[in-house]
């Protein structure tokens, strides 16, 4: 409150100085009377109490509800409304976001176009460094290759919304939903590795929990010696976007640059097995916890997430082309 008073004093003084020349004063007084606020602009106590209690009640409902939370239908309804809007907005601004890339590589793109048609397969290797459209093609191609090596079908989708860091949870919206054959607890990958899992779906969109989220736990395996452990996110995006791996077997010391892949579960939910996640960058041993903790650098660049694939059972009916296990489009 003292802070507010301090801020108010200069404003009030200013008002006194300006008051003679102002016509708005009378109007504002009338407005204040009509809105049932008292002389100092204080809102009615009942309203304050009601709103704060409403927030508290909502938090309590959602917090103790877990997955069967009564708030969940409201979330879905909101997703049905805002999902298509987010998809539309992203479609509109996507070309503008790509403009800087396009200018940077415009010359090389023009010179490559003839070759591109003739030697598409060879050029796909170079495409990562080229312009936006070719990047997109490479990502689809990478997904196809991923489906081939994983033995699952993939539904391609694009990221249309990112949760703000201020919310401290790492979630994104993708533009494929139940119409595309998606269900909660499906694995999401891109051509670099594991992205996350589907939390909830609407008809046209799905919310994906990234493995970076502090609530995300992934069963992981070290590729070299098949030892298992649990990967936890740190809730940080950006440069420090790392994961912590805690191994079940305390005696194992992972080596630097060891590859970490998913461990997977019986039904392939929430994570299918054998998907590359990242590599070990450093290992800490904690005497107090008597465990080894390895830091994993994920393969996926979460700052530039765009095209992703959702792992679906082979033969799923979808509203778009599904990349089958043999790499063919269906």
């Amino acid at each position, binding site marked *: 409150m003292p802070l507010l008073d301090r801020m108010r004093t200069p404003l009030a003084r200013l008002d006194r100085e300006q008051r003679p020349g102002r016509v708005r004063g009378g109007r504002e007084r009338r407005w204040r009377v009509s809105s049932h606020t008292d002389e*100092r602009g204080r809102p009615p106590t009942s309203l304050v109490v009601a709103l704060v209690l409403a927030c508290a009640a909502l938090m309590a409902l959602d917090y103790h509800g877990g997955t069967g939370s009564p708030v969940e239908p409201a979330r879905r309804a*909101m997703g049905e409304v805002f999902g298509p809007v987010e998809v539309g907005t992203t479609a509109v601004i996507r070309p503008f976001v790509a403009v800087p890339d396009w200018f940077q590589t415009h010359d090389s793109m023009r010179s490559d176009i003839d070759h591109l048609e003739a030697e598409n397969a060879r050029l796909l290797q170079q495409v990562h460094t080229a312009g936006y459209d070719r990047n997109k093609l490479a990502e689809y191609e990478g997904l196809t290759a991923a489906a081939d090596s994983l033995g699952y079908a993939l539904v391609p989708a694009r990221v249309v*919304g990112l949760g703000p860091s*201020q919310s401290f949870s790492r979630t994104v919206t993708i533009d494929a939903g139940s119409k595309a054959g998606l269900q909660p607890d499906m694995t999401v990958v891109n051509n670099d590795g594991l992205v996350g899992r589907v939390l909830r779906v609407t008809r046209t969109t799905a919310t994906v929990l990234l493995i970076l*989220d502090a609530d995300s736990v992934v069963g992981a395996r070290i590729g070299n010696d098949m030892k298992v452990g649990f990967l936890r996110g740190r809730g940080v*995006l950006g440069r420090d976007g790392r994961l912590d791996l805690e191994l079940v077997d305390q005696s194992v010391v992972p080596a630097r640059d060891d590859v970490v892949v998913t461990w997977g579960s019986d039904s392939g939910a929430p994570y299918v097995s054998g998907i590359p996640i990242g590599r070990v960058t450093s290992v800490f041993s904690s005497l107090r916890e008597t465990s080894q903790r390895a830091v994993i650098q994920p393969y996926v660049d979460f700052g530039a997430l765009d095209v992703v694939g959702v792992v679906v059972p082979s033969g799923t009916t979808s509203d778009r082309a599904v990349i089958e296990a043999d790499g063919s489009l269906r």
Partner: protein
Amino acid sequence: MSALRAFVAMVAVALALVLQVSVFPHFAWDGIVPNLCLLVVVGAALTRGAQFAMVLGFAAGLLLDLAPPADHVAGRWALALVVVGYVAGRVRQDVTPTATGVVATVAASSFVGTSLFALSGVILRDPTIAFTELLQVIVVAVLWDILLTPFVLPVVMTMFRRLEPDRAAV
């Protein structure tokens, strides 16, 4: 007029939400984007007072809590923005605030709002985030909001002032 005002306010908040979720991530710094919904609530508070701003803050917070890709405990942003509406509304005292006043209000509101959200997360143990990380996010969020103030607040405040019933009557 009141129904129209409520409708326009909700459209403004919805627009702010979509921009915040789908457009600004392309310019984000470590995923931290300007909190446009908060700016709309502050604008409402500076022109219409605390009562209207608190109700609008509650509605805007609900949108932030429920619209995809949100996944935190619902009600956390609602509580934060109700308090923001109260704080910013109490600053307004029969005056059209100066530019400095508006920026100071936005900075204070942004700090209070983001901190309250983080604090409710700590209490509910929603995510477990390190304190330094919390602080960094709060500081960058405040800077973002101040940066966007000259572009957003004049538009929002003019809009709410135009919708003032007394002015329409005169």
